[in-house]
């Protein structure tokens, strides 16, 4: 009984296959993306249309995944049914896939297209074992977003140094305003704070060594970082109960003038503006200087495209990566994304004060970190962020937190 339908099915599918190969003269490039939000989706559709216009013999077929679901899906499709291209992130986030041999070495794309110079700011984040494993196409700056109206209200000036910042906090506290707001219910905003306190206290190289597991968490310099942080925690300058607040709800506190400053990524500008802020009331400045002896480094999480090891059409995939790296392509793509191009020959929209400030800030930074949960391995990131969250609620637990992180470090980086 089973034979017949199976037979018909086979004949049918063979016929279909024959039909498609007869119709499609083009070479197919499958592209799995996580660009499910409206703006990135439109940006990528335009990118692919441009690519197909330039290379008419290549047909790009995209499989769109939900942004969060993609993080799980990628593990399945890389091993089971590889596309030719896949979105992912730079730094330690791509390391498990590189170590497992799931990404193709694309150093030749970098060498042939002068990318080592044009994508210089992201090169270290894309390099493992001296080879490049993908092409970065966008990043965005982190820094201090502030409410200009409440600065005027209490007569505070935009601070240059951390001392000025802490002095401002006193003014805000007296006026009943949270000096620094944050919502750590999803934990990562706490990591942004730690990154900046550590980068400003100990500098980029130390921060990279720490996240790479080469420095104990009980090191005196790590304690210094937390001591600086504590200048805001102990006096109650940071929004209370942050552990139960979503980052968007904390953004609302800033928009409503109940908080003055917020350490965030540039994606938050849209949320602030939804809350009624405009370019006149919302301001941005780089995280203030703590230790004048360390060079300024910034957080700039980078999004990338990779070629999976199981790609069926790696040659055209490399063509696509070279296209994606081009300055004009990155300019157009990032204008649509509302983010910053990685290629230093690209341009940004001068009319957007946050993008132009960010582009200036990142291109003059001495180093770019990827963000704590991309620089540190996943497990260390998770326990680190938990520790930062606890520190902001119970600064007295610091000793206990650092000992715990240190024992985790010794277990995780074997």
């Amino acid at each position, binding site marked *: 009984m089973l034979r017949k339908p199976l037979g018909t099915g086979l004949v049918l599918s063979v016929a279909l296959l024959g039909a498609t190969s007869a119709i499609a003269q083009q070479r197919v490039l499958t592209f799995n993306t996580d660009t499910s939000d409206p703006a990135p989706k439109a940006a990528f559709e335009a990118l692919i249309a441009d690519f197909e216009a330039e290379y008419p013999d290549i047909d790009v077929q995209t499989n769109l995944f939900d942004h969060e679901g993609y*993080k*799980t899906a990628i*593990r399945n499709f*890389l*091993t089971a049914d590889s596309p030719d291209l896949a979105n992912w992130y730079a730094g330690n986030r791509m390391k*498990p*896939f590189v*170590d*497992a041999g*799931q990404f193709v070495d694309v150093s030749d794309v970098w060498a042939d297209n002068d990318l080592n110079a044009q994508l210089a700011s992201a090169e270290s984040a894309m390099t493992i074992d001296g080879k490049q494993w993908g092409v970065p196409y966008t990043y965005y700056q982190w820094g201090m977003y502030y409410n200009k109206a409440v600065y005027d209200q209490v007569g505070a000036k935009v601070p240059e140094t951390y001392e000025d910042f802490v002095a401002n906090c006193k003014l805000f506290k007296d006026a009943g305003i949270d000096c620094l707001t944050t919502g*750590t*219910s*999803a*934990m990562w905003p706490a990591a942004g704070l730690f990154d900046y306190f550590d980068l400003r206290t100990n500098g980029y190289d130390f921060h990279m060594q720490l996240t790479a597991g080469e420095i104990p968490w009980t090191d005196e310099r790590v304690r210094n970082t937390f001591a600086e942080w504590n200048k805001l925690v102990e006096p109650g300058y940071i929004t*209370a*109960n*942050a*552990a*139960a*607040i979503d980052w968007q*709800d904390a953004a609302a*506190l800033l928009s409503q003038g109940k908080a003055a400053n917020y350490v965030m990524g540039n994606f938050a500008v849209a949320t602030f503006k939804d809350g009624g802020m405009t370019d006149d009331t919302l301001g941005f400045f780089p995280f203030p200087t703590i230790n004048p002896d360390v060079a300024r480094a910034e957080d700039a999480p980078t999004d990338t495209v990779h070629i999976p090891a199981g790609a069926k059409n790696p040659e055209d995939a490399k063509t696509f990566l070279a296209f994606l790296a081009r300055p004009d392509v990155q300019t157009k793509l990032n204008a649509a994304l509302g983010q910053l191009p990685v290629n230093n020959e690209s341009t940004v929209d001068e009319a957007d004060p946050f993008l132009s400030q960010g582009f200036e800030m990142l291109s003059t930074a001495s180093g770019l970190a990827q963000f704590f*949960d991309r620089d540190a391995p*996943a*497990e260390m*990131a*998770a326990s680190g962020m*938990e*520790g930062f*969250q*606890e520190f902001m*609620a119970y600064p007295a637990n610091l000793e206990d937190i650092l000992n*715990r992180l240190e024992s985790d470090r010794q*277990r995780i980086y074997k």
Partner: protein
Amino acid sequence: MTIAVPEPSEPPRRTWWQSNQQTLTPWLFLAPGIFMFAVYVIWPIFASFQFSFYDWDGLSPKTWVGWANYQELWGDRNFIISLKNNLIWLVLYMLAVPAGLGIAIFLNQTVTGIRIYKSLFFFPFVISQVVVGLMFAWFYAPNFGLFFLLTEWLFGTGTAVLANPEYATYGIIVAGLWPQIAHCMILYLTGLNNVAPDQIEAARLDGAKGLKMLWYVVLPQLRPATFIAVVVTVIGALRSFDLVSIMTNGGPFGQTRVLSFYMYEKALSEYGYRMGYGAAIAVVLFLIMMVFIAGFVWKMIRDEKGH
């Protein structure tokens, strides 16, 4: 039903199928169920046992580590917290049984519109756990939540339940009890329908009333309902995943984790992918559940023999 009468001239020639039909048919009907159960329940259980002895990130080859995952569990502070929270869940969730009984007795009267009241009390069981979690998360939310404003008005400073490592688990359990009480209530309401009126009347003639009536006459008749209520409540407490995930995501600083959530975090979440370690947690949770399941099965067998 028609019975085929065999030709009298020939002795009935029964095929193998015909002679074994009676014994085979039940198995044939069971086969799809057994197949699904084996593939989706039994096999994964054994696979989890096997994975728990490996170090595996889901991508690279597996490495055999023996009992190392279990040894690590023993020293893992987060595992101990999850285990402790699971116990708190189990104990406090049991409140749903007497509370459900109380509401059921209260609603078991004939007043106009009682159906409306019953359905209102039953309402939380119908809505999704995710919605319950969201509602309670807003209720507790700092700065704008009703509960926060209430405590602020009463004590001067507001209590953000979900930001406080000591209260957060209890806050989630209260949210979980709301639908769970409704579940127990509906079980008891159907049970109360079956309470024999003649026995109540006889007890009343003998002068029983109030608590004595409840304890000696009504409750014994509700034993099947109580059994089911306890079973669903224990299961509900042990699989408490969605509320934790929605309301706190295990926080603040991992203090509201339960075993099922910790297993998910270690094995499948963004910061996890330690399949072996996650499987070891799953095995521990399975063994805890086995204690209860074995107890329930033992009681059911005993009851069936008793009849």
